[in-house]
């Protein structure tokens, strides 16, 4: 009778026994039961075989991070569905869910690029560049002056792309603090100018969540560009920087 009771009580613990996750009284009972129960011995053998299959699997292939290619078989009715979805998507574009301004974080994009080779939305491409390279072949109709404003240095320059356009980001250091300046085509809709924004448009979308990095939008339309400054600095600091940069750009 005890053997039958043990059989049902201990059977679910066979994997735990195999993986040395049992201890104390339950372990002793399992060892004693296995000696006298051929059914549990057989079951344990199958569990062990299944475990070894996975554990011995040459995971070297599996662990490689490879560029992936994908192909979706697409039946005829699928095209109709896709067309309907596309129409709805176009209509819904203005009311799309609101992303955070955090999506502009360049360090995150850079980390993504190192790992996966691409960015998450809204960034689709990001490359480091130099001011000299930008001067040589600007992606936007902008001429970069030879001299920076006093007290400012550029520690990083990037070119990025979103589904809508290409832009440039410059990481400045001024008064011991860093801030990003993003330049975007004038066509990119910006709702708020020159103020810390509670709700802004950036990368063509409304953003409502601003956490680590405050975003200041600057109504700066020289050469067909608008500018976005991402910084932790206060409003007065930003205004001073903007004045300095405006002189620099002009």
């Amino acid at each position: 009778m005890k053997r039958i009771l043990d059989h049902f009580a201990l059977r679910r613990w066979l994997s735990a026994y195999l993986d040395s996750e049992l201890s104390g009284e339950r372990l002793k009972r399992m060892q004693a039961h296995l000696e006298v129960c051929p059914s549990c011995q057989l079951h344990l053998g199958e569990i062990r075989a299944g475990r070894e299959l996975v554990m011995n699997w040459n995971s070297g292939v599996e662990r490689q991070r490879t560029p992936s290619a994908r192909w979706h078989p697409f039946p005829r009715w699928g095209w109709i569905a896709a067309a309907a979805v596309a129409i709805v998507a176009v209509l819904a574009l203005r009311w799309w869910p609101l992303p955070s301004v955090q999506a502009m974080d360049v360090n995150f994009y850079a980390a993504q690029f190192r790992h996966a080779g691409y960015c998450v939305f809204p960034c689709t491409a990001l490359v480091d560049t130099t001011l000299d390279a930008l001067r040589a072949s600007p992606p936007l109709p902008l001429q970069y002056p030879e001299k920076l404003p006093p007290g400012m240095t550029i520690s990083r320059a990037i070119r990025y792309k979103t589904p809508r356009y290409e832009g440039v980001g410059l990481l400045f250091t001024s008064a011991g603090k860093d801030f990003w300046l993003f330049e975007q085509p004038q066509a990119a809709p910006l709702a708020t100018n020159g103020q810390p924004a509670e709700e802004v448009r950036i990368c063509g979308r409304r953003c409502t969540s601003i956490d680590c990095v405050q975003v200041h939008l600057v109504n700066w339309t020289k050469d067909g560009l608008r500018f976005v400054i991402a910084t932790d600095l206060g409003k007065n600091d930003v205004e001073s920087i903007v004045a300095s940069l405006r002189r620099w750009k002009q």
Partner: protein
Amino acid sequence: MCGPQVAALNQAHHDVLFRFARLFLGNPADAEEVVQDIYVKLLEQRAAVPGDITRPWLYRVVLNACRDYRNSWWQRLGRGSVDMSALAILADSGATPEVVLLEQERAAELRRVLQQLPPRLRAPVILRDVEGLSYEDIALTLDCSIGTVSSRLNRGRTILARTFRGKKP
């Protein structure tokens, strides 16, 4: 969670997240998509993040994202992606095509069988036999008891063994 924190998470744990998602979903393209979705949710603060990030929390996030992805309208449309990583490996590695393809065949077969396991059995098998989590951590990840972890492993491993029994050369 702000950008630098997500970047740190990405650098420290991306491989683990991707590997688990790939095994759970069965192909790398879907896995990349799921992991990217996780980052976006974290960036947009649509997912709660604990102060101390643990492995069970990470796996739980991926598992939930995989389930969401499986339930998405695109997946329900039946558009499973085809894993063509064998071709990519062939292009990148110095191994002979025969060796690569044999390895791939075996890996693909096991992956296919893993996909046939119900998700509730597949997850503990991957977490234990590939990721090496303790039963306690698996129970935390799956939000179940340790006894349930053990019984699900029993069933998952048994199915794998029986499926492969007739396939050995």
